[in-house]
């Protein structure tokens, strides 16, 4: 894998490492020094002897031995000569943090195309410029120039996140940390002088730490290659994309009816659907879907949803949301009905949505979740648990987690409330049970699981057809 040195470098140089604590180069260098990164880190600064006690080198070419990754954080006009040095040295990967390139036009654009020329025919791969680079909690690679007290780093988890915008990426990482959401890799791709979303998708398709790939993109440079990379990735893991700039009307000559109807948003939508990419319309949806898809199993052929709730209203609203999306509620089997009737109080009516009523305790949840999730007529379980009643304690999290593991069926939770609820949401997150604050968001997440199941069914049908067609 030619992108491996970005994520698993043994040696890293930071160009622009400075003794001044507010400089980007200093923050990046310090992040490596302070972290559990196991490789060697070299500060590159022609005007310093040592930085943070480590010997500084005037240029990457002066560093002894091989250099896998170089992080470049110096003003744009100085970058091309550093890229030259990297090529001379045989550096495998470089992240150019610096801005002041294509995004400002004119001289900046010229600098960027000069960099593109310099790496042609060399083995150096570049992420950026104009980006915040890479964060990999598995190998402790962290090129983010924002100090950790401002931008907390998420723990390791199954979701990879690629962002064209650095600021959006940074904000999402900070938020993800606060929600106990884990990340396998984060990559901010900036101006994409070399490495783009296609390269990264191809790499993440094979990454054993990633179970779901999320992307925020504004423009896709290689449309068809992107769709091919997505299709390849989707065989093993879902891809969720939030595409910015959808509402801008595409400039198009309209000599045909088709031309007048083909806005860029419509084509993107069709292209994504055709490839099996799950499209998120909002920032919420991007991670709502990713958490369900990364944490929970893909549904089986049975796609009907069972709702288990201790609040009638939320159950009814969830049932509405399910029917609004064209999904189905479950028809409980007679076994399930018998078991529910035997174990529920007389005032609880055993049908879907299953209202365990307000005095439901953890034992009642345990019984109901076991009964419902072992029912062959149930494909997916939506657990609504409102924690404002005094009957429910925090071990409801264990009841849900255990039922989820035992059933092998996807399970998502809907719960809303203050500090106590938030604490339980984080505990659920730890156990990889995604929880959502509203029925609408929970059911949308369920819908993304069903969408991915349908993508898998299409892949399966195509495989069967090609087996039939081949001699």
């Amino acid at each position, binding site marked *: 894998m030619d992108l491996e040195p970005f994520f698993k470098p043994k040696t890293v140089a930071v160009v622009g490492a400075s003794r001044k604590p507010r400089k980007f180069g200093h923050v990046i260098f310090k992040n490596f020094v302070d972290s559990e990164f196991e490789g060697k880190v070299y500060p590159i600064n022609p005007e310093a002897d040592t930085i943070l006690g480590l010997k500084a080198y005037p240029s990457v070419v002066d560093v002894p031995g091989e250099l896998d990754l170089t992080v470049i954080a110096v003003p744009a006009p100085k970058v091309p000569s550093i890229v030259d040095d990297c090529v001379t040295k045989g550096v495998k990967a470089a992240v150019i943090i610096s801005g002041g390139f294509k995004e400002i036009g004119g001289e900046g654009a010229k600098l960027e195309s000069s960099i593109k020329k310099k790496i042609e025919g060399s083995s150096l791969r570049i992420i950026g410029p104009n980006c915040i680079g890479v964060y990999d909690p598995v190998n402790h690679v962290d090129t983010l120039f924002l100090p950790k007290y401002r931008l907390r780093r998420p723990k390791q988890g199954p979701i990879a996140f690629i962002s064209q915008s650095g600021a959006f990426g940074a904000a999402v990482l900070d938020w993800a940390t606060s929600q106990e959401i884990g990340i396998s890799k984060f990559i901010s791709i900036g101006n994409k002088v070399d490495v783009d979303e296609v390269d990264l998708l191809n790499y993440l398709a094979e990454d054993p730490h990633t179970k779901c790939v999320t992307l925020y993109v504004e423009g896709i440079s290689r449309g*068809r290659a992107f769709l091919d990379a997505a299709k390849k990735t989707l065989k093993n893991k879902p891809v969720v994309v939030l595409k910015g700039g959808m509402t801008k009307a595409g400039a198009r000559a309209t000599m*045909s*009816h088709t031309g007048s*109807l083909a806005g*860029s948003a419509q084509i993107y939508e069709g292209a994504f659907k055709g490839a099996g990419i799950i499209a998120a319309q909002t920032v919420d949806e991007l991670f709502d879907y990713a958490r369900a898809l990364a944490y929970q199993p893909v549904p089986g052929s049975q796609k009907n949803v069972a709702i288990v709730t201790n609040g009638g209203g939320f159950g009814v609203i969830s049932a509405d949301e399910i029917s609004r999306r064209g999904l189905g509620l479950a028809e409980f089997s007679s076994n399930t009905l018998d078991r529910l009737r035997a174990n529920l109080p007389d005032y609880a009516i055993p049908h879907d949505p299953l209202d365990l009523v307000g005095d439901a305790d953890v034992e009642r949840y345990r019984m109901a979740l076991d009964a419902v999730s072992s029912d062959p007529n149930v494909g997916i379980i939506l657990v609504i648990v409102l924690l404002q009643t005094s009957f429910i304690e925090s071990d409801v999290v264990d009841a849900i987690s255990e039922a989820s593991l035992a059933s092998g069926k996807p399970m998502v939770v809907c719960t809303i409330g203050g500090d106590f609820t938030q604490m339980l949401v984080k505990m659920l997150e730890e156990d990889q049970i995604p929880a959502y604050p509203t029925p609408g968001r929970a059911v949308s997440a369920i819908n993304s699981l069903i969408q991915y199941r349908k993508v898998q069914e299409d892949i399966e*049908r195509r495989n069967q057809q090609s087996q039939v067609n081949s001699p």
Partner: protein
Amino acid sequence: MNECETIIQKALQEGRSSLLIPESQQICTLHHIPTPVSHVVQNVDEAVTKGNEIGFPVVLKIISPQILHKSDVGGVVLGIADEAALKNAYPKLIADVRKYNPNAKVLGVLIEKMMPPSTEVIVGGIRDSQFGPSVMFGMGGIFTEVYKDVAFRVAPLDKIDALNLIHELRGSKILEGIRGQPPADMDALVDVLIDVSSLMLQHSAISQLDLNPVIAYPDGAVAVDTRIVLAKNGGGV
């Protein structure tokens, strides 16, 4: 060079940005897309002969490189019921077109079989700057005009893609048969979509294509009007 490319290259050499209706129809035929039986005629007598051969009712369409939107200028006459009506319609068609554009070069008139009514859909092709050749499917008439009930896929399409595309439309229920109507021939629609997909992939000079409408029957589907727009520079993504 295959027959389709010969037609396209000839049009490009003549500086045209779209194909004439018989040319569009021929390209469709070569790509197995059903179109009504038709003939090019040069005068009313020829029209009468061909009309009797095809069988009434028939349709007349003006053939002129200067007239892209035929129906806006009286360049299409539908539902000509018999020989007498055809004899009246033919000179009127020529006169109406002349009145609209005295300089329009009339290369002939297309006479074709008037297809019986059924559910109308629209199939389109477009070369997108980001994703290249793509296919559109929409429910015809008001569903497209008002509700924009259309959806796209990037070519190539296989049967699974084509069926998913059809079922993505809100109006696809109509094709499944409602209010006692028989369902439309889905296989025929799937074939049209796959054929348009391969047509767009094969001919890079085609920038936009309309089959509008395609009439969906319980057995078969026919593209009753076709428009093919060429890229001026002769090709795209």
